[in-house]
């Protein structure tokens, strides 16, 4: 079994904020993630039966859509992007028999060293979020690295040093940052919008946060709305039309 870092408060706590109010479910994050990571840290991300009956590949980010009904929101379709949450208390790490799965002390990223992964899949059984992806071809487990080869990559312009899913998200529903920094965008969003932990009751303390859907409303000050609105000279329209106009 693998231990978690001794420093229970890492210097940085990197992760994502995903805004369910804004996610349109376009899959840009999922495909850009696939594109980046197919040639990145965990390359390749194989695709089985690519042009056949059961195409099935390794993806670190998948988007699901659900219909729901709530008192505040009414009926709504919610798009839910799902990837590793880089938990503070990750069972996928503690269950690992070889130390291949580990949580980094410096930034809290949960990572897999595929050189020592034996492909036993205990971690994928332990993860309640379904975030782990088994590469059957190589016989090892793979997962979201928070684009470790982007966020620290000095060969990239500084503004590009964010995970691929964040950089590409067209509706800006994804945000990356350090949750230990109360001034960071992710911390501010979490406090302003009241974020949710996924399956909080399980105690894995996910780092990634989800912002809940909202509903904008318009308060109407005055509008004569009934069919019986006065006809004839005192109707609102005729009063309006009576006014002097200037072209």
């Amino acid at each position, binding site marked *: 079994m693998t231990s978690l870092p001794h420093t229970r408060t890492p210097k940085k706590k990197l992760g994502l904020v995903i805004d369910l*109010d*804004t996610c*349109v*479910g*376009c*899959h*840009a994050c*999922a*495909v*850009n993630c*696939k*594109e980046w990571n*197919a040639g990145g840290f965990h*390359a*390749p991300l*194989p*695709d089985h039966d*690519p*042009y*056949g*009956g059961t195409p*099935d*590949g390794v993806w670190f980010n998948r988007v699901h859509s659900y*219909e729901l*009904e709530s008192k505040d929101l*009414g*009926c*709504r*379709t919610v798009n839910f992007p799902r990837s590793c949450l880089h938990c503070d208390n990750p069972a996928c790490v503690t269950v690992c028999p070889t130390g291949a799965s580990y949580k980094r002390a410096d930034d809290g990223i949960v990572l897999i060293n595929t050189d020592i992964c034996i492909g036993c899949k205990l971690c994928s059984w332990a993860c309640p979020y379904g975030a782990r992806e088994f590469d059957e*071809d190589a016989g090892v487990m793979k997962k979201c690295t928070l684009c*470790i*080869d982007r966020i*620290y*990559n*000095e*060969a990239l312009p500084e503004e590009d040093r964010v995970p691929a899913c964040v*950089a*590409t*998200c*067209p*509706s*800006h*529903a994804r945000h990356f940052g350090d949750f230990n920094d109360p001034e960071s965008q992710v911390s501010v969003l979490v406090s302003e919008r009241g974020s949710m932990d996924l399956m909080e009751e399980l105690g894995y303390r996910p780092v990634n946060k989800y912002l809940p859907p909202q509903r*904008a409303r*318009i308060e*109407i000050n005055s*509008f*004569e*709305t009934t*069919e019986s*609105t006065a006809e004839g000279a005192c*109707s*609102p*329209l005729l009063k*309006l*039309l009576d006014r*002097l*106009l*200037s*072209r």
Partner: protein
Amino acid sequence: MNTQDIKYSAPIGDEIAYTTCYMCACRCGIKVHLKNGQLRFIEGNRHHPVNRGVLCAKGSAGIMNVLSPARLRAPLKRVGPRGAGEFVEISWDEALQTATSRLAAIRADDPNRLAFYTGRDQSQSLTGHFARMFGTINFASHGGFCSVNMAAAGLYSLGGSFWEFGEPDWDHAKLFLLFGVAEDHDSNPIKIGLAKLKKRQAKIISINPIRTGYSAIADEFVAITPGTDGLFVLALIHCLLKSGSIDTEFLVRYTNAHHLVVNEPGKSTHGLFARDAAGQPMAYDRSACRTVPGHRIGIDPALVGEYILEDGTHVRPAFSILASRYLAPEYSPESVEARCGVAASDIRRIAAEISEIAFNQTVRLETPWIDTAGRRHEYMIGRPVAIHAMRGISAHSNGFHSCRAIHVLQMLLGAVDTPGSWRYKSPYPKPIPGGIAPAKSERNLDGSLTSPVLGFPTGPDDLLVDAAGEPLRLDRAFSWEAPLGIHGLMHMAIAEAYHAAPEKIDTLFLYMANMSWNSAMNPAEVMRMLTEHDGEGNYRIPYVIYADAFFSETVAYADLVLPDTTYLERYDAISLLDRPIGSAHGPADALRVPVLTPDRDVRPFQDVLIDIAGRLRLPQFTDGSGNTLYTSYADYIINHERAPGIGPLAGFRGPDGTAVGKAPPNPEQLRRYIENHGFWQHHLRETESYYKFANKTYLCGAVDMGLIDRADAIVLALYDETLQRFRLAAEGHGVQQPPERLRARLQKFMDPLPIWYKPLEEELNENEFPLHAITQRPMAMYHSWGSQNVWLRQILSENRLYIHRTLAAVHDLVDDDWVALSSPNGRLKCQVRVMDGVNSNTVWTWNSIGKRSGAWTLELDAPEAKRGFLLNHLISEYLQEDATGTKLSNSDPVTGQAAWFDLRVRLEKCTPEESDEIYPTFVPLKSPFKTKHPSILRHFSEREKK
């Protein structure tokens, strides 16, 4: 502790190229990273005006389209029966000679016997020019089955349109009304914009029978009945009129609301504007108590009342006709609620919210501006109600009028190109209507047509009809059946060629249009028409040339296949003459450049077309001695001038590359675009950013840049006089007369003010076929292209018929049960999925997911062919035969827009014996080349090993 060796700072690749995406029609800027000459990563270009660094799923999967096994590899000549997929590869020399000799013979005989139709390309300015120089009137792009209702309604009302040619003022809008499916065009700009609205908590109302895509994040979802949007909007107008919530100042300043309309029923001028001696529409000045020119400033024009001109003619302001029509009880929310499927109380509340935002939460920008009368205004007032609409309105046979209804609503609110409202994207606005009339078969001595093939009719004289009033064009555009068919009717081309064969058409030349499958109404019929003989061994459609990059379903039906490149292997101009990337902030255009060299014997279609034009010695492609003027499309982009100084790209013009818009060609232009990361843009100043239809600074600048010819005010057409001219003809006035069978139809539909009527197909068979059936656009797919893409097909490789829970209960259906859908045109079988977010009388599915077995080189067990299906099989190009034995086109009666979404169906649960496989199915297509798919694709690993 794990001490893994991680390469943190590995460069992405060793080479970067900036170009323009083409995984859909959005035209985003992309930054392509290459490693060892191979594609490594495609990301959004952060500085590009369209996508500002973001990139969608399709764009992110571009690598897998460029590496698609379905790419065509060499020119093909058919050797077996048409449709059997038996081809031999031939050389480009042979292919081009074959095409040229065929086309040369046609041109010498009757150029109209070439029908040239292009699909979703972005080079319509080139293809249209080719057609004009060739001399055929039978040319169009695919707009007739896509967007023409929106284009025509917009261009004839506002001088600009929805679709990708306008945009909400994302930074100031406080209420956004989104009509119908809009996910497949301008998709990244809209997503970026929605995020801005969300950030400011502006309210988003989605009016759509189906809650997917952008509708999912709307604050309010209005599950409207398909085809009733226009009625819903007219009910909103009814409420706003009742409560006096309209902007009369805007109406008299910028629209023709106050223009006097002749009210002399039966006379040849009835319904037209009363004009003065100078031909100007007149108004009635209430202060001076007399008629005055309608455009005169300082007048106090009447909007209601009846007046009598000096010559005794009765007239009334256009607005008064409008007000009396829409104030009538038939447009009250209570009258329309059942038909629209929207509660009257909701319609009233939405009208109230519109009024609240437009008139109580006005946006005021402290930006001075000067109007076309020369008056300086110290600030800009905006009604921050923004509207966007696309296919959900367009794809109905009442779409033109529904779209006009929305534009009328915008005008009544003063919400056209004002802060917070819908805005024109450059190069719009343009004068109303937008240009000259369509070409008739009048040709210059060199054989070219005297004007562009597609144009803007302003009355019956501009129609392309014979002495009997019947269509001259193959597809019936610009005939009495589709007077404003400004984009042609591509969906009619094959069927009409078949029925007229062989008198009308010799060769059908198609580019990038999957006309035997997902772009066809009734694909099975199209396949039959393409393969049927005339009894003497000749095909009824004698010859088919098809250009495409991929092995699509249509390839098998060609006699000659010209293989195109992928988007990363070609030049393209994203041109102001075509579909540019301008925004409300100013004109912009872009270049697509070859990032890779093709590894197959393929050529960019535009190069091929220019080559053929040269071989045919077409004017403006060759000089007087027959020498070719352009060596390639790149050469054409640099040096072609449509008018003096106006070329495909507007940036970096002139000898030193510093001129913009109108200036001589610059031999270094492409290099300058490449240095500027593939695009050019011009930023409008704040003072010219709004009220562009009447903004003198803007209009003068647009003239200087060559976007428009004159800086006159563009008077918004609340009342559309053009339509009335056709109606008068239908009533018997004038020389140009419609066939008798169409008179009543024209009188009804050519109404100068928006009307609502039941979609034509529904009118014919609503009882027998009680449900609406429509499609939505999956955001990760673009038409049929996505299914060859190994990443995208993992997101969506099969579709279901989505139905409402209550409908499922009626038919005792659960997820994955099999149902049969039937329409007057056919029957299909598919599986269902039950949901809540759909209008209860509507069933729907994703567009273009179903594939013909074998096409795109997918294996025979691919879910796209096994369980994927198309609704197209239930749709026809024609309506049922009428009393006179003629079949009208299944299209909008004003524009000829294909009425895809008019489809009505009946649903039945399949018996267990029938619950086996989809229907219809077709013989699997045979690939014209050998393919061997890997069982596992390990992208990037094999390369590393090399």
